[in-house]
């Protein structure tokens, strides 16, 4: 097995300056600053988290709501800069954090494929090349030329998944997405995921569904209150998590 490290998270700490309540207006800011009440509460979302993911691995992330999973994913995909420590990822990261966040409701499905593809970092020739494939996978047919504000939520999810998964990304970040569309599309997307994983893609997988984690992941990290509670084989960590 290849042991090329794709993601290296070293001693990452993330602290947010949380104002007791967000000051979003100048007047509020000035009056508070004058009264000396502009104090920040520190909130530590992640503390000294370290791990690495090897190439081709499917790495699971579990933890309760607010444990820091999403923050960790954002740090890995470069959206957030950690307060301390470093997160290095080699290769292009395709985040499937929330599908279709780059969609524009006034554009047609076709235009959105190109827009969303560009946002995910695909090149133009690549998209043109794979355009038919994306449309076919989404099963949208003639609706592809309709503005997507007329789509049902299932159709939107299908389009988004099709765009995001057409590429063979080096690192794929999956945050609770295998529940899109109807049963048959869910099955299809699961197959597509398995296909990607066997194709050498490194996958970071976040889910609350322990069965899914057990089925798909090799190793799992359990985050609890921003700290690493446990890291190890899927079966072992899932059992501990379920028991806690």
């Amino acid at each position: 097995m290849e042991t090329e490290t794709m993601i290296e998270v070293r001693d990452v700490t993330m602290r947010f300056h949380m104002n007791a309540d967000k000051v979003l207006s100048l007047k509020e800011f000035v009056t508070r600053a004058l009264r000396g009440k502009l104090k920040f509460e520190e909130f530590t979302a992640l503390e000294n988290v370290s791990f690495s993911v090897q190439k081709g691995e499917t790495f699971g992330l579990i933890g309760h709501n607010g444990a820091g999973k999403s923050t960790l994913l954002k740090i890995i995909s470069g959206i957030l800069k950690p307060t301390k420590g470093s997160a290095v990822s080699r290769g292009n990261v395709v985040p499937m954090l929330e599908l279709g966040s780059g969609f524009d409701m006034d554009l047609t499905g076709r235009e959105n494929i190109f827009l969303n593809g560009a946002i995910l970092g695909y090149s133009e020739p690549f998209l043109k090349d794979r355009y038919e494939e994306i449309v076919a996978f989404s099963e949208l047919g003639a609706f592809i030329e309709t503005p997507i504000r007329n789509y049902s939520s299932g159709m939107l999810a299908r389009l988004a998944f099709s765009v995001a998964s057409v590429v063979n990304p080096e690192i794929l970040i999956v945050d609770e997405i295998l529940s899109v569309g109807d049963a048959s599309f869910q099955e299809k997307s699961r197959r597509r995921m398995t296909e990607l994983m066997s194709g050498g893609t490194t996958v970071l997988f976040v889910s609350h569904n322990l069965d899914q984690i057990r089925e798909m992941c090799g190793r799992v990290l359990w985050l609890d209150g921003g700290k690493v509670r446990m890291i190890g084989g899927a079966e072992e960590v899932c059992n501990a998590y379920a028991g806690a």
Partner: protein
Amino acid sequence: MKGSTLRKIIAIVMGVYVLAVVAFYFLAGHQLRFRNSRGNIAMPEQVIQYAELTDGVTVEQSFFAPIQRFESVSVKFATGVRDTNEGTVLMEWLRADTGETLARETFDAAAIAEGEVLSLSLGEAREDLYNVPMLLRVSADSEEGKCVSVILAAKRGGDETVLNLRPDDATLFFSASGEDYIWSGMHYWYFAAGGALLLALYFLAVYLRNARGKTGFFVKTVSAMQKYRFLIRQLVARDFKTKYKRSVLGVLWSFLNPLLMMVVQYFVFSTIFKSDIRFYPAYLLIGIVSFNFFSEACGMCLTSVTGNAALITKVYVPKYIYPLTRLMSSTINLGISLIPLIIVSLFTGVRFTQAAILSLYFWVCLIVFSLGLGMLLSASMVFFRDTQFLWNVLSMIWMYGTPIFYPDSIIPERFRIILRVNPLFHFIKNARVCILEGISPEPKAYVVCFLFAAGMLLVGSFIFRKTQDRFLLYV
């Protein structure tokens, strides 16, 4: 970055620089080396008396002016509101020290209209008249009741007196004009070569650094441009498509809008300002198109970060792309609204000269300035949502503080500082000079506009860069 790619880009940039420098030299032409002299004497404004030029009356005006290249003097005449004047009027211009006649001409009194300004020209500009005492002599051979008059004004200080005619403490309605040399313009090629040398040295450093595997600002910018070119194009296309998506006339609005605004303002303001301003419709339209672009671009940039919150929290894309793409789609709009500007200008009789091309320079400055301000606003908007309301008020003040529909001459002298520190005034004024007057502004104007634009971009991008890591926590 690959050495060959970098070499190609450097060659292109250097080529563009050389082309721009040479093109500017020819487009700016005469105005690059000479400007209207600071020593020019302007026509007075307050009439105190008329002096009838009957046979035997000679009006002499002594004067001097610090003009490096003397060209002409002019005198304003009155007819006594008659069209039955007869005889000839003689105008002479001589040196008071040597008595040399510089120019003389006779005019038919019958052909002189009320308030007409007649000029004596040297033909070839003369450089030896700087501060030399001179005489301007006007006489005529008309009978009383059939003669034209010269106009007298209160004395303005300096060594001007009207001789041979009472009262002594008056001055003739006359003007003197010429040009001064522009030192920087005379040495244009030295500056151009110096710029080329600096640019070449910079690129050499960039190239060597790159060869050693280091990346600097230039290489980073270029590779980001390559990497995100497709995304930028898609985002610009999205802005542009969605803007007119559900309207019937669609993109036509991009040039109907300024045209309609121009028509409305023309009807509202034409009676007040029309006589002061040549080509008033075109004058208006240049102001409207420029200011519309400015307020649209800044308004779009303002919400570019907060409006794309969904993207910013999900995908990593360099954040400056959001204001940049908004600005680019506004720029396309600006390009489209230049079409009605050209049409209206041709319709109202504006003669386009080569200098009109130079107006593009000032629009580029306007675009760069808007980008800088837009970045500043978008960053500030993230932390203080009040920015949008403040900006609404500010942009309205800015609109009234910029001569869009009124001539800048109506601003009293003591408030002119407001214009001088207003970058939009400089951009719009100089674009108007290029298009309406058909000549290039003096070289200083280019430098001033460049400094305004580059300064704003530096400030805006600096603040944007400093704060962008914290955007995520506030959007």
